[in-house]
């Protein structure tokens, strides 16, 4: 273990990348993209959106007031003609045009559905969905105040949906992904990359000729990497809690324990890859695809039950997917670890299996090296 720390101290770039750049870059990019945990942020608030009123009635005027005072459309611009406003889409001067067609109030008064036409610059990824969801929320509560009996009846006979379940901020949700990604990414490279580099430099063979046993070598490297992961977990959580106000639904000890469990899983896989004789370049390529693979199949962004066919089967076979469930269950909804026994067992069994396999393979290769 002390040998590993000595090597790390000699390579300052590696220290900076491993302990600072990876956790800081990942956490800050998450905070930058989603905003802090306490922030209520609507992407449509600040962007210029044209409001064209072709009806010019009391109902359309109330609709304008409802939209502009919702807090989701602070940059609503009036005064454009419909064709002029639509022509500005795609230029960056206007991102959407909300048009109230002629006959809007008349339709409502006659009990017909009135329509609202929204032109949207869909080269802006995500705008269509955000706009649609913000406007739907406003329209659901929109009261045109036509003073008709029927509207009052509609309000009184509504069905309310009482929603239960933990309230989760987008930031804390993203934090589970960041923590897992940082851990997996850094750990795999440190173990598999370190072993491969030592093999290529010839220092691994020399290490095996020393009285140190293979188990002690593996244990030493694992202990060293566990310590690095403690620091990384502190860095990620420190930024998340103090800079972005993230409040996970569990205690720090549980998060640290799970982070170390995921790092142990990745370490054991790293040993397995290096036991298969992968070189440094191959390790880097494997790491890149491992991260992408886990991103797609381990529940990082897609819940397992939304996957189909072979994708779902792969997801069920990946131990990291269970690690993600553990992180989500505890950090997001505050479940105790005892309630996640199946996932815990699967991860622990995978760690034991990977360590066992890599030990056997490394032992076989040791005999070849020493002979």
């Amino acid at each position, binding site marked *: 273990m002390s040998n590993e720390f000595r090597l790390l101290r000699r390579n300052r770039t590696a220290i900076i990348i491993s302990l600072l750049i990876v956790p800081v870059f990942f956490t800050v990019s998450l905070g930058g993209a989603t905003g802090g945990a306490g922030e209520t942020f609507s992407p449509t608030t600040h962007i210029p959106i044209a409001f064209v009123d072709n009806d010019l009635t009391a109902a359309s005027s109330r609709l304008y007031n409802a939209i502009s005072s919702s807090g989701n459309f602070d940059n609503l611009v009036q005064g454009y003609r419909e064709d002029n406003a639509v022509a500005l889409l795609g230029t960056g001067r206007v991102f959407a045009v909300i048009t109230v067609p002629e006959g809007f109030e008349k339709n409502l008064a006659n009990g017909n*559905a009135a329509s609202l036409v929204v032109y949207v610059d869909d080269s802006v990824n995500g705008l269509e969905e955000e706009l649609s969801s913000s406007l739907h929320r406003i329209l659901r509560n929109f009261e045109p105040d036509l003073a008709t009996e029927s509207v009052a009846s509609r309000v009184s006979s509504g069905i309310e949906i009482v929603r239960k379940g933990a309230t989760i901020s987008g930031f804390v949700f993203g934090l589970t992904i960041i923590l897992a990604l940082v851990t997996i990414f850094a750990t795999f490279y440190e173990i598999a990359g370190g072993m491969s580099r030592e093999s290529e430099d010839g220092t691994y063979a020399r290490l095996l000729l020393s009285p140190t046993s293979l188990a002690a070598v593996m244990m030493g490297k694992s202990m060293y990497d566990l310590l690095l992961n403690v620091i990384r977990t502190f860095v990620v959580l420190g930024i998340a809690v103090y800079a972005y106000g993230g409040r996970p639904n569990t205690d720090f000890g549980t998060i640290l324990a799970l982070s170390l469990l995921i790092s142990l899983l990745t370490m054991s896989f790293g040993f397995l890859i290096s036991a298969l004789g992968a070189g440094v370049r191959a390790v880097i390529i494997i790491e890149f695809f491992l991260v992408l693979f886990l991103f797609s199949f381990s529940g990082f962004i897609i819940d397992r039950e939304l996957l189909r066919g072979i994708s779902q089967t792969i997801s069920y076979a990946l131990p990291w997917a269970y690690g993600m469930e553990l992180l989500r269950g505890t950090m997001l909804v505050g479940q105790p670890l005892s309630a996640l026994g199946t996932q815990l067992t699967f991860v622990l069994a995978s760690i034991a299996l990977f360590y066992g396999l890599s030990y056997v393979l490394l032992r076989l290769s040791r005999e070849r090296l020493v002979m």
Partner: protein
Amino acid sequence: MNRQINDTAAVTAKELRQLLRDPLSLALTIMFPILLIQLFAVIVTAFSATSYNISVVVSDLDGSSVSKILVDKLTSSHVIHVIQFLQTEEQALHAVQSGAATGAVIIPKGFGDALLNSRSAFIVLQTDNSKITSSALVQSAVTSSVQALSAMTAHGSGMYSAQVEMVLRPISGRPPSGDTFLPGMLGMITILGAFDDIVNAITRERERGTFPRMVLTPASILSIYSGKISATVVLNAIRTTLMVAIFILTGLVIRGNILLVYLTTTLIAMFTMSLGLLLSTRIRSSSTLTVLEIAITFPLFQLSGAVQSPEMLAPGGRAIAWMLPWTYGNDALRRVIYLGVGIDAIAINIIVLLVSSLVLLPIATLLSKRTI
């Protein structure tokens, strides 16, 4: 000048020949875009499916004819799959807490009676919010069923409900499918490909000791760097062609001039290469540089407009995004591919990428001269 061009061409030819002799790097160059697109196809397929089987339990404590209609609507949903009917609220809530179901719908006693007498009624929906997408889908499916029931009961009692419908008209005319990610993917593949080229081009040569030997030849540092950038431009053209072919096979229509797509990816690659050359003057190990490359991948996905446009980011993220020249490249790609805009509409994006490369390249050359 002629000498400079000849040297640049010689280095370009050497780079391409070297790549052809390295099957692993060659395979990575070709396979990388294909594999990345395949993985994103999995994500997009999952998000854009028209039906799901998300497990939900129902506890109908009312048992009235109205509640049965709601249950019927829930069971016929294409999004949720009612796996069990439970007798009590506690059982339903426990099913969600234990992970057996993603959602539980509880219809309380008196629900039907309240609706038939024009009073407000409620149902309870418990979701496992640790599954963020699934729980949102369950909420949306239950809301749709409830809205359908509301409309039915209102109609049955002679009431009418004044509604405002929203008609969304995207200006590109493209269908609301998963291809929203593809231009961003092209941008990311260009960035990562160019970064990988720099690892091959400089740091590995340094490790093998061939770089100082090349510097000792009569070719100037600028010619060497220009040659390496030219090789990247050629490789980038191959990668872009491959991606465009995949786009067309997946049904994406490129509305703008295809040459503008090539121009934009070339400028993104040149900027990335210039930055890579600058970094390689300080980071001399190929593996460290590659790890740095992977380390910046995730932040770039988030902040360079590859997945979400900068306008959709929180204020802090938006400010960072517009400071990254890659964002201008991804923005240009999206507008050329989706909106079919011409060079005048993306002129600023092109200038930002070009100027950034022109600023970084001399600095990299200067630093490189000092470190050799």
